[in-house]
């Protein structure tokens, strides 16, 4: 369960959000600049809000009134950045094992994630030689292998061409089916959100506009997409 309460000013944008969700995959949906990534950064600990409280599965990550602010490295959240951020000087295998080393992952778990994301042929390659879709798959695998309490996906399909996008989307669906990881997905694509989320929070100008089940969102997707444009 995610409980989130944030107040923060970022230049022109004023974040002022309250939300609670029991969904396993929660999507933050809104246009660019709405504050979605800032919310994700606050959950990860990369942004220190002026005030707020973030609780994930009864674990308090942040409570400014109580002086609690868990360091990023201790939050154990698998963050998949929009640009992948793979380490260019390490092989794919070493990238995957980077967070795994901290958590002492077992070889069977490594093989399982590598299999689910079809990363086996890429293991000895280096990130600069990978395609966009391959990079995102490795980034997702790397985040999962750190044994996270939650997965944070920031526009994971952004910048990919149609074929790569479809492939990564397929892998994300498989992961959702096979793994029981609480996931927060940030996206401004209604089709991605409809395909992956259980619940959708619409954000506009730093505030929650609506919170609705994914099925309802999907049925209204075209209308919602129009209203966001």
């Amino acid at each position, binding site marked *: 369960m995610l409980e989130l309460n944030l107040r923060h000013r970022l230049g022109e944008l004023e974040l002022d959000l309250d939300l609670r969700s029991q969904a396993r995959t929660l999507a933050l949906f809104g246009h660019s600049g709405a504050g979605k990534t800032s919310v994700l950064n606050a959950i*990860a600990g*990369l942004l220190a809000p002026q005030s707020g409280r973030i609780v994930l599965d009864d674990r308090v990550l942040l409570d400014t009134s109580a002086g609690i602010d868990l360091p*990023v*490295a*201790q939050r*154990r*959240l*698998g*963050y998949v*950045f929009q*640009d992948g*951020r793979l*380490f*260019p*000087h390490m092989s794919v295998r070493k990238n995957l094992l*980077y*967070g795994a080393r*901290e*958590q002492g992952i077992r070889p069977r778990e490594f093989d399982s994630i590598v299999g689910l994301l079809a990363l086996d042929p890429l293991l000895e*390659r*280096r*990130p*600069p*030689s990978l395609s966009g879709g391959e990079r995102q798959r490795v980034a997702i695998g*790397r*985040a999962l292998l*750190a044994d996270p309490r939650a997965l944070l996906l920031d526009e994971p399909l952004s910048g990919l061409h149609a074929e790569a996008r479809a492939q990564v989307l397929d892998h994300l669906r498989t992961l959702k089916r096979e793994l029981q990881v609480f996931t927060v997905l940030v996206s401004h694509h209604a089709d991605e959100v409809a395909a992956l989320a259980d619940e959708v929070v619409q954000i506009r100008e730093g505030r929650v506009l609506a919170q609705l089940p994914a099925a309802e969102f999907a049925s209204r997707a075209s209308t919602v997409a129009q209203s966001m444009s």
Partner: protein
Amino acid sequence: MTALTADEWQALLLSLRVGLIAVAGSLPFALGLAWLLSRHRFPGRILLESLLFLPLILPPVVTGYALLALFGRHGPLGELLAQFGIVVAFRWTGAVIAAAVMGFPLLVLSVRAAFDGVDRRLETAAQTLGAGAWRRFATITLPLSLRGIAVGCVLAFARAFGEFGATISFVSNIPGQTRTLPIAIYELLNSPGGMPGVQRLAIVALVVALLASAAATFIAGGMPWRRRDHA
């Protein structure tokens, strides 16, 4: 052109030893200071940077005099070290200190530029994967800065290898002890019939400089993620 004489070999080996030890000894301090300047804002930062650049701006003889005032028999650091039986003035160890001080700004500047060039977002990614500050530095920042660090080491070594003014003021010109290659060249220039020796040592200095430069280029070019994979 004849082979080097025993004295010339001695000067060459001393210069190499002084240069290598000066760089190796100052590298950890340079890494720490470069990291501080690259990643942190703090009061007194401008003063620290100004002090860092002093050896580049001051006449080397003045730097040598300052070292003598500090590390000489009656200097504050000299007296302190003497209590542990360590004397550096007029010793080869003093030449190492002079060379390290003169090369330090170049080393810090190169390393800092290399740290500045590392994509901070990669460090953030490592942080989200559970890596603490030291692991992020050792596994992300340091390997991605190797080129700049290697270049800094070569520049500092070249500066140390060619150091003259600060060395001769601080540790004088003692054969076998403090007569480095540049000081030996100066000595030969002022000696009747010394010109062939000057020429030999000048060629040696040129060869060492070329080898150091080639080594830096090889190290930088040999980094696998630079050499290939840019598909």
